[in-house]
């Protein structure tokens, strides 16, 4: 039977309450869905960032499962060592349990500083899932731009000013790059659809080899949105086709959700403080170009899914 919320809610908590993430933060949901998606034991790693600093303040921890944090850029490499240890000890008969492995990182720790470590781990074929919680900037250090930051976004290193219009570049399409690694499973998910996220995590854990999930996880502070709007904003990102939900299984692309009524990027962006400056007179061209790019990417995705 496919996973549903009732089943997910009945499983033991693997990430406890009492962590210190902001009210309305998206990533505790990501952790709960990913860790709850399977019943087998899981060992988790995490890059330095909000997730790690709010959940493991010594002598406390929110992790009810074995957890390791090493540094910022090496969540994937660290987990590849843990997984290698497991393979070795299992081969020697020193471990007989079926253990699964997941490495988490934010977009800074995944798209940017941890990109090489991630690429290496995926190419080597470790039996692990990598989950990027993408909130579109370096939120832990106070909202600096990353290569996941969307064009036009105000961040503290691409501030909207008298001349500056926010980030000048479009975001990097990381899921496409990971699919190009030829690994068995790549998917894009969102905290806007928790069941879809949990089902993808379950699939990711059950493939033979590496899997990558990119999960849109809005940051209420960095995006400048109300604390109770994070899931709605994430859902609308998908309805705007800015963040399509798709999966790539053994090279076969599938779009999981096609919005019946596509939301205009203007309608999505205007709810977020980070795009406020784009609605000042004179910035219409930037908003038009952003819409055109989102449309182009969506068409390219549909084409990939049809061609497969």
């Amino acid at each position, binding site marked *: 039977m496919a996973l549903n919320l009732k089943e997910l809610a009945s499983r033991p908590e693997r990430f406890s309450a009492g962590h210190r993430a902001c009210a309305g933060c998206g990533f505790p949901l990501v952790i709960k869905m990913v860790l709850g998606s399977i019943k087998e034991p899981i060992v988790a790693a995490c890059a330095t960032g909000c997730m790690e600093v709010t959940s493991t303040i*010594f002598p406390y921890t929110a992790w009810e499962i074995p*957890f390791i*944090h090493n540094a910022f850029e*090496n969540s994937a*490499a*660290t987990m*590849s*060592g843990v997984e290698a240890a497991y393979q070795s000890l299992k081969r020697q008969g020193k471990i007989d349990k079926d253990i699964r492995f997941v490495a988490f990182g934010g977009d800074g720790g995944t798209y940017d500083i941890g990109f090489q470590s991630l690429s290496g781990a995926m190419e080597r074929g470790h039996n692990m899932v990598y989950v990027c919680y993408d909130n579109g900037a370096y939120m832990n250090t106070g909202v600096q731009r990353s290569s996941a930051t969307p064009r036009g976004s105000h961040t503290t290193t691409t501030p909207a000013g008298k001349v500056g219009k926010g980030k000048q570049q479009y975001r990097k399409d990381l899921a496409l790059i990971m699919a190009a690694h030829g690994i068995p499973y790549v998917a894009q998910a969102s905290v806007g659809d928790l069941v879809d996220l949990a089902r993808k995590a379950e699939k990711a854990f059950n493939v033979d080899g590496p899997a990558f999930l990119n999960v849109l996880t809005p940051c209420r502070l960095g995006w400048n949105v109300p604390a109770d709007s994070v899931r709605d904003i994430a859902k609308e990102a998908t309805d705007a086709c800015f963040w399509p939900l798709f999966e790539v299984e053994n090279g076969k692309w599938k779009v999981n959700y096609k919005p019946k009524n596509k939301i205009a990027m203007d309608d999505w962006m205007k709810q977020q403080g980070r795009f406020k400056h784009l609605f000042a007179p004179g910035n219409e061209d930037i908003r038009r170009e952003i819409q055109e790019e989102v449309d182009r990417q969506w068409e390219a995705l549909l084409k990939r899914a049809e061609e497969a």
Partner: protein
Amino acid sequence: MSVVAKKHRIALTGNEAVAQAMRQIHPDVVAAYPITPQTEIVQIFSSFVSDGLVHTEYVPVESEHSAMSATVGAAAAGARSMTATSANGLALMWEILYIASGSRLPIVMPVVNRALSGPINIHCDHSDTMGARDSGWIHLYSENAQEAYDNMIQAVRIAEHPDVKLPVMVCMDGFIISHGMENVELLDDKVVSDFVGSYKIDHPLLDIDNPITFGPLDLQDFYFEHKRAQAEAMVRAKNVILQIGEEYAKLTGTKYELFETYRLDDAEVAIVVIGSTAGTAKVQIDKLRSQGIKAGMLKVRVFRPFPYEEIKQALSHVSAIAVLDRADSFSSIGGPLFSETRAAMYDAEKRPLITNYVYGLGGRDINLAMIEKVYQDLLEIKDTGKLKQYVNYLGVRE
């Protein structure tokens, strides 16, 4: 001394000897990346994996940063874990060196000493490991391939000792030792395997019934206590190194201590040195002794923890000392071995005059004539009672 273990004498390079030690130690995981002059170690070890001679999971990572990161992950998971590197590779690991030691993981890593860039150079000096001297790793240096082999085997026991739980670097001079062929005496596989025993850590990550959070955020209320405990482990390491050395001597007949002295007991002038240069110096000392000059040497094996008290006692009777550094610290007051040795001698009742020679950078040869020059300078210092300068550069065009 009765020696119990049978030994096999064969011609090996330093890299081959270290790879053989790794095969006999039989680590659960090796994660490594090629870099000259270390590359051969991981090549040879890979062939052991490919031929089924070891059960090791070999992780051919995409950088040294990931090599150390994966090694930390594997060691924390509950696997005996190793990597190997040189120079820039060690520099790329830098951040994670501190995490390995701060996490008290008993990783053993051979480092084939090579000059750090820039300018780029692939030959021997100690700038790589000396730069990592404050990273919380135990540093064992080797004079030749035999010592590199013996240090590797002892390093496992030192690192994993419950009083220590710190990572160990086993350093050997690039090309001079790593690629030089020598007769090396290897122990039987079973003797090594019994000596190193099995790997155990207190809270392995893979113990899923007893979950642990590894590498948490450690703030103003606990970080200092953890660092204090780490400092204490390094203090305790000294006795452990001596104990393991004694135990190893019972097997092999060769005793390893914190340092080796050569004709030092009645020496009036002495040099302090690290690595392969000690072999050259011994020849020169014999020559000088035959001329009636009371020359001696102290060769440092253990640089971290630094055996300051023992070095002070060993050198306190000497009139003039030259410390030979195969690395400059660019402090304007000489190399790291000079700073440490000079500080150790501060409390001597009769402080010797101590000078420093920086030599051999980027693989520049050091020969008998150069070492003779150092002793001639020392004799002049002894006779005049005066140091001309603290820091000298040996064998360089000025």
